[in-house]
């Protein structure tokens, strides 16, 4: 589903060159639930961003669901992100000026769909995360757990095959964290391929496979 070959990411400033990722090779199969762990600054999020086509590797190749990413044109990447990928961020990244349902509809705005279709799909996604009674609320009226559930609904509304979660439970207490993990596990059972960055060993143990990074290199 996701293939990374010899991925390198180098951050350059005028005086320093930092190797954030060093020759990463990964093959994530369809339907897998993979967690990525490692100390802070080891390149976990950078790796996830490259998988999600949010960032460009300095070297190496990325392929998403058989689509080799050879050109990083805005139009091509936008389409791939919109059709194939869904993102969940640690700090939710909801748009405060939009209601819950409008936030969830965002990925559908960049597809050819009618307002009615968008609304139906967003309602369906919110039902899946147990928030159908909060559709008209605004993010500021929600708890952290509820916000993350909205973020999950937004990630799955377009029915992407891959969900990339960057520390989705990082800002939540353990009860909320377990609830969110439960939702992700359910989505995985329904067929979604999930890659999750986490610091929590217990969470990682509940996934199919663990990838450990250290100083930008894969150690497990």
């Amino acid at each position, binding site marked *: 589903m996701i293939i990374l070959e010899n991925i390198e990411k180098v951050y350059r400033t005028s005086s320093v060159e930092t190797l954030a990722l060093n020759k990463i090779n990964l093959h994530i199969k369809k339907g897998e639930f993979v967690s990525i762990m490692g100390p802070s600054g080891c390149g976990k999020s950078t790796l996830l*961003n490259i998988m*999600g086509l*949010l*960032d460009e590797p300095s070297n190496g190749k990325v392929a998403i669901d058989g689509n080799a990413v050879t050109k990083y044109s*805005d*139009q091509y990447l*936008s*389409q791939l*992100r*919109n*059709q194939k990928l*869904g*993102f969940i*961020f640690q700090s939710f*990244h*909801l*748009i405060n000026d939009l209601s819950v349902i409008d936030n969830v509809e*965002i*990925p559908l*705005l*960049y*597809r050819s769909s009618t307002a009615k279709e968008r609304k139906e799909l967003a309602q369906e996604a919110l039902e899946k995360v147990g928030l159908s009674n909060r559709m008209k609320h605004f993010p500021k009226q929600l708890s952290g757990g509820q916000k993350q559930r909205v973020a999950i609904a*937004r990630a799955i509304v*377009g029915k992407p095959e891959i969900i990339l979660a960057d520390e989705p439970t990082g800002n939540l207490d353990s009860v909320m964290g377990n609830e969110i993990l439960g939702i992700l596990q359910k989505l995985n059972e329904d067929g979604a391929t999930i890659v999750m960055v986490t610091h929590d060993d217990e969470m990682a143990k509940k996934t199919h496979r663990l990838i450990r990074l250290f100083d930008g290199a894969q150690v497990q």
Partner: protein
Amino acid sequence: MLTRTDSAGTTMSSGPGSFQFMNQYVKALKTPEVVGLCSNFGFSNTYVNGNKIKLNTKFTNSDFWKVTDFDFLEGKPYNDQQINNRDYVAVITDGLRDQYFEDGDHGVVGKYIEVESINYRVIGVVRGSPATRLYTYSDIYFPYTLPKSNYEDKGVNGSYVAMILGKKKADLKAIQSEFDHMITQLPPSLWNDGGRFSVLKVNAETFFDHAIQSFGSRKTTQLYTIFGLVLVMIIGLPTVNLVNVNVSRILERASEIGVRKSFGAPARALLWQFVIENVFITLIGGVLALVLSLIIIEMINSSGWIAYADLAINPTVFLISVGVCFLFGLLSGVIPAYRMSKLKIVEALKS
């Protein structure tokens, strides 16, 4: 404005024209349809029940009423026969009627008004014009042949203005050329004051050009350029400010840009989103400006700050303003929106 100078430009005599000059030379022009003559307004007093009423007075010919667009509430203007007969008649404004005549509502034509110990028969009542219309404003209008009009003064300078009505708008150039030609044909003895002056400058100008000329002695085109530059500055500075405000406004939404891009928004879609938002906000500003203008105009009109003020929104000027709003909305939105749409997703999400 009639200006005479010596060749070195050190001595100058400048001011309106005399009645004789206007009547003999300007009124004789062939291309205009009508030439109205009137004096600048003067000052006088009248009394009613022992209370003084300060008056502005004006002397005119009969064509003055053809060139202007006064609304006669009662009666009619004086004609050439009354002027030639030196009839003591006057046209007054509704404001003066209400002050002077206690039962003014029942008609005052035929009644007499005493100004400086002379009784004038009221033959017409017009709706007053605001003082901002310098050349038509007055409280009372007299035939030019009545006392204190100075219509028999010799020389070219005096206190009279000619208002020329063309047969059609396109005749303006022809009128100006005929006027310029007439000026070149004037006998120098008429204006050179025994050799004191050697240059005579006088133009037939549109009201707007004349108003612009009153700001300086430069050429009209130079003045237009100066006014244009001032306007560009007045409009340009807020535009630059608006661009900065928009940059910071859109920067605050960097995270939103990151989110939208993560979920598949192409840069072009974001560019359009921000430009359309900006144009919309600017147009709302334009509508607010229109509403505020209407309120302020209504306040000025009803406040009495300017007597007889009848300010109104000019639809053409308003439509141009909406166009300018639209243009600046576009300009001030495109630059920041373009920059933001090019923002890297990872950086946008971090902010």
